[in-house]
């Protein structure tokens, strides 16, 4: 029936208009919301380093519960890729990077609002298959013949940290592969393709079912700072500030330390 169709179409149109209206209010940073974390609403888009995937997803859920009416969406990727995306104008509210160098790319381009803050630190461990079949106890064991090692490429934070730690230990080793990010290096251990990889403690803990993390003293020479910042072009600045405050709060920190990160 023609009239029936018309009515359905009108109803759909009304629904769409209502939705657009609501999300519009949420994202354009409506004037009545202030910097205080009370009463923030709307969508918050967080660009975060891939090593934060598990803990930030949890923090996002907690934040939504603590602030009804907010909705947190994440874009997890390598910090450098995220920095590029932000500098090319990606619509993000918050950036959490796994290294000061990648944070600097964003602040140098003038895309940060205020100063970035260190919220956690992460340290390298040697990830080995469960049971540690090669009995790896330190970096020197990785240079033994027949031990296949995956490192991160030097261009990414975990690779730069690995280089520092190996230099500090005076160990020269030839890895079989230089992976593009820490999770890729970890998955090579999980799949049994390599005997060991240098990854962050938090990553090793996330794969505790298949992987053991062997601590080594030289990792103290290569501690990675994780920094967070509200972005200058943030579509929802009030909620962005509330989210950053939540990450820095006791509750946010406890989620992160449980995941293997260290308090700064």
């Amino acid at each position, binding site marked *: 029936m023609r009239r029936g169709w018309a009515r359905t179409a009108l109803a759909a149109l009304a629904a769409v208009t209502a939705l657009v209206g609501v999300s519009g209010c949420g994202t354009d940073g409506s004037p009545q919301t202030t910097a205080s974390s009370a009463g923030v609403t709307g969508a918050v888009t967080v660009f975060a380093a891939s090593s934060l995937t598990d803990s930030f997803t949890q923090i996002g859920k907690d934040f939504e519960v603590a602030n009804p009416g907010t909705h947190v969406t994440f874009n997890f990727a*390598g910090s450098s890729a995220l920095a*590029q995306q932000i500098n090319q104008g990606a619509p993000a509210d918050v950036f959490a990077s796994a290294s000061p160098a990648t944070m600097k790319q964003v602040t140098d381009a003038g895309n940060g609002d205020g100063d970035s803050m260190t919220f956690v630190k992460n340290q390298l461990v040697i990830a080995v298959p469960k049971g540690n079949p090669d009995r790896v106890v330190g970096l020197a064991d990785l240079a033994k013949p027949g031990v296949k090692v995956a490192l991160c*490429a030097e261009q*990414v934070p975990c690779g730069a940290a690995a280089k520092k730690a190996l230099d500090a230990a005076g160990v020269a080793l030839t890895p079989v*592969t*230089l*992976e*593009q990010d820490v999770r*890729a290096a970890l998955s*090579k251990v999980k799949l049994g393709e390599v005997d060991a990889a240098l990854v962050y403690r938090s990553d090793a803990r996330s794969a505790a079912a298949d992987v053991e993390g062997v601590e080594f003293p030289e990792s103290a020479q290569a501690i990675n700072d994780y920094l967070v910042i509200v972005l200058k072009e943030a579509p929802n600045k009030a909620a962005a500030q509330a989210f950053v405050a939540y990450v820095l709060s006791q509750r946010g920190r406890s989620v992160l330390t449980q995941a293997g990160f260290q308090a700064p």
Partner: protein
Amino acid sequence: MSTHDRGSTRENDVLDVAQPAPVPPPRRWVGRRVPVALLIPAALGLAFLVLPMAGLLIRAPWSTLPQRLAAPGVLTALRLSLLTATVATIVCVVLGVPLAWVLARVDFPGRRVVRALVTVPLVLPPVVGGVALLLVFGRRGLVGRWLDETFGITLPFTTTGVVIAEAFVAMPFLVIAVEGALRGADERYEEAAATLGAGRWTTFRRVTLPLVAPGVAAGAVLCWARALGEFGATITFAGNFPGRTQTMPLAVYLALEKDLDSAIVLSLILLAVSVTILASLRDRWINTP
């Protein structure tokens, strides 16, 4: 030309089938205007494909180009890319042409399923393809474990691994192109060869293959281009090590982590080399007017 002319048993005549008509009729554009309904989407389509490349060209750091070209590792990665893509294409032709022939000419139960399976690498995200390859050819994989224990061969993190990853992702392009050419080819030539006493293998070699040669060439070109640009399966299965498994796309990706300009230069080198090679091949092998 009619099939009657082809009745000759002379081999050259049969081979001639693959050649285009000797004198193409002159094209007359006068009075044959291109319809606007086709022209506008065609122009938009072209712009859509070409603009991103223009973006790279405009953004390229032309002043520092020579130093960046001479940077260590660039030529190594380029050489490795060209080598692995070429070997992968050869593998694809050797295995893919017979596969396409079976799909096009042999009627067997489950052919539609097999045809769909051939396209799996096309829909599979390449990184997943790389994981799948690890599960089969990796050190703990179904086949890889046996290779390792019996022959001491491990494929991941080797140049052979790069070829395997590229061939896996690129082969469907060749199979689909060749199968299409085979289905489009006139089967009467093959039947004529059979009535003249040629076996199926001779017919394939002497009649079918020359007949679909342009299709094979087009498929091989597609296959090579896809292999050259392969990233996800390669980095997952073969890893990334300069000189051994770091192809140009991997080098571009890692350069992007630090330095956008270097990444753009590397991309342009890869583009320039591949476009040059493809254009020269096209002129020589595929005589499209």
